[in-house]
């Protein structure tokens, strides 16, 4: 910054005087000083934290690279090395990703994942849903992709059949999360609208449902779906394990999403309802075209929060005997050949969880910015 001999009101500038208000110095040095070293307490905290971070990072770097075993090896060499054992992951990555899916058929699970990922990425681009016609094509595209994924996982059209209980690993996690969140969102919309309905019966059913489900931990819902449901239901009605867990997820997250959506609905001025109604729109038209598009826009951050929580909470299905990504990681460490190693498997799946969740939160920030801008070119 440039120093002048006099400040704005004509007084001589003291050495070390703070810059006048409104005059903020720029540049990395100024930023550091302002945020990290502005007084001795800040300086002390900064130095302590820096030391801590450096120590943690150092141990990680040593574990990963310095004492890590990168070349093909057996467990003895790895343990002698004292660091990360990449040979273990090289041996086990397919087990961790695809679990008990038949080994020679795992390309199908992999292809299903790739197809799904491609569909998600394509749908995330705003240009894909900018016009009504494109949205219709997108729907058709999704139906095709989901159909193809179903065939790839289950078999048919010449592919050998794979029973649902062998679906595991990442495809299972993604399926539980995706199907669960979509269905929960649909149910949540109805519950949120129901809770604000003028019809008492519908309102009380919605409130009762939401409060009941919110008062129960997810894990107990999963146990109930897994153990109680088969007892309660008639004997000849057999619902596969997977679907029961899926149902528990949908029921659980619908209650939370419903409350979030209700918050968004409350943020819409009453005048919007009045104007939509006065125009002659029916209740469902009002909701679909006027109210929900505005309400959902408000609650994107909270909804994404729930999506992220939902994605991670799929790992609870381990406790009802299913092998999602966490389950397969645990299976990988149980192999006697690699007995004693587990960090690598957990780091591997943690990286997958982290990438997915970070991508979701990045995308939600992007959407918010985009929707906040009035000059949305479509």
């Amino acid at each position, binding site marked *: 910054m440039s120093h002048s001999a006099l400040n704005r009101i004509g007084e001589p500038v003291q050495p070390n005087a703070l810059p006048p208000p409104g005059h903020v110095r720029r540049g990395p040095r100024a930023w550091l000083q302002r945020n990290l070293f502005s007084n001795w307490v800040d300086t002390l905290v900064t130095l302590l934290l820096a030391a801590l971070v450096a120590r943690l990072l150092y141990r990680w770097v040593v574990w990963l690279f310095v004492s890590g075993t990168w070349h093909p090896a057996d467990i003895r060499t790895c343990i002698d090395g004292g660091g990360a054992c990449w040979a273990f992951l090289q041996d086990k990555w397919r087990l961790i990703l695809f679990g008990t899916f038949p080994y020679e058929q795992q390309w199908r699970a992999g292809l299903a994942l790739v197809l799904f990922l491609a569909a998600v990425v394509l749908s995330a681009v705003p240009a894909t849903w900018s016009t009504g016609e494109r949205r219709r094509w997108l729907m058709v595209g999704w139906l095709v992709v989901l159909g193809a994924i179903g065939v790839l996982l289950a078999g048919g059209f010449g592919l050998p059949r794979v029973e649902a209980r062998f679906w595991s690993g990442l495809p299972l996690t993604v399926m539980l999360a995706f199907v669960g969140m979509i269905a929960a969102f649909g149910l949540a919309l109805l519950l949120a609208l129901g809770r604000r309905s003028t019809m008492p019966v519908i309102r009380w059913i919605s409130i009762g449902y939401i409060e009941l489900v919110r008062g129960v931990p997810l894990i107990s819902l999963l146990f109930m779906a897994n153990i109680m449901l088969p007892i309660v239901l008639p004997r000849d009605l057999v619902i596969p394990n997977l679907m029961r867990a899926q149902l528990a997820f949908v029921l659980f997250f619908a209650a939370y999403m419903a409350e979030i959506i209700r918050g968004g609905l409350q943020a819409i*001025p009453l*005048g919007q309802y009045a*104007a939509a109604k006065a*125009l002659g*729109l*029916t209740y469902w*038209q009002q909701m679909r075209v*006027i109210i929900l598009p*505005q309400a959902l826009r408000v609650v994107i951050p909270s909804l994404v929060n729930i999506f992220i929580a939902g994605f991670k909470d799929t790992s609870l299905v381990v406790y009802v005997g299913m092998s999602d990504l966490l389950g397969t990681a645990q299976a990988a460490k149980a192999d006697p050949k690699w007995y004693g190693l587990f960090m690598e498997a957990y780091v591997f799946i943690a990286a997958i969880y982290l990438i997915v969740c970070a991508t979701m939160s990045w995308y939600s920030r992007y959407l918010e910015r985009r929707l906040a801008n*009035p000059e949305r070119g479509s």
Partner: protein
Amino acid sequence: MASKPVIVFDRVSKWYGPTQVLRDVSLTVMSGERIVVCGPSGSGKSTLIGCINGLQDYERGTIRVTGVTVSEREGTAHDLRAGIGMVFQQFNLFPHLTVLENCTIGPRLVQGIGEDAAVSRAHAVLGRVQIADQAHKYPEQLSGGQQQRVAIARALTMQPRIMLFDEPTSALDPEMIREVLDVMTELASSGITMIVVTHEMGFARHVADRVLMMDRGEIIADEPPSSFFSTAQPNTRVRGFLDQILTH
């Protein structure tokens, strides 16, 4: 000039909880009439016009619009709304839609006409309110006066026989009131039935066929402007009210 009654209130009463906001209101509006409703705040003016298209419910009496009783329960209110345009104090444009989309949504969804026909109809009404060049903007990019003109256009896209205005200029900066009143005056000359809640006494004097004054849920005056604004106005409550709003 007026031919047959289009809106008939027969001893209508309405309560908000314990407070009675309409007291045995009876009123007949003939086709093509232009009516201005004024009165102190809380006197029931907005409630009165809100009952005509069923945005508000009423507890006693009957309201008939074009011979049909307005009833939310029987669904007649919903059917009638398509033929009754309404303009609000706060504009209430749909902020997530462009001006053009605001004006095509009613015809497309309620009347089921095609996209192209809806767009050309929207352009026509936007031209009528002098705002055709803003069709692709979003409401928040327009001034208050422009937004209110779009709101009028949006109501007109439904080709209503009745237009209700609920204090259309009260939320506007003074310099924008004129442009909205001009549009309303032009509309008034088209033969449409209009009920306007407003304190714009100049508009009432020059455009209205009848001026109604409400006080505490009752219609206390219902006269042509010539006698309503006459210095010989016998009703002291009307005189008091007029003195109050005309002297500042």
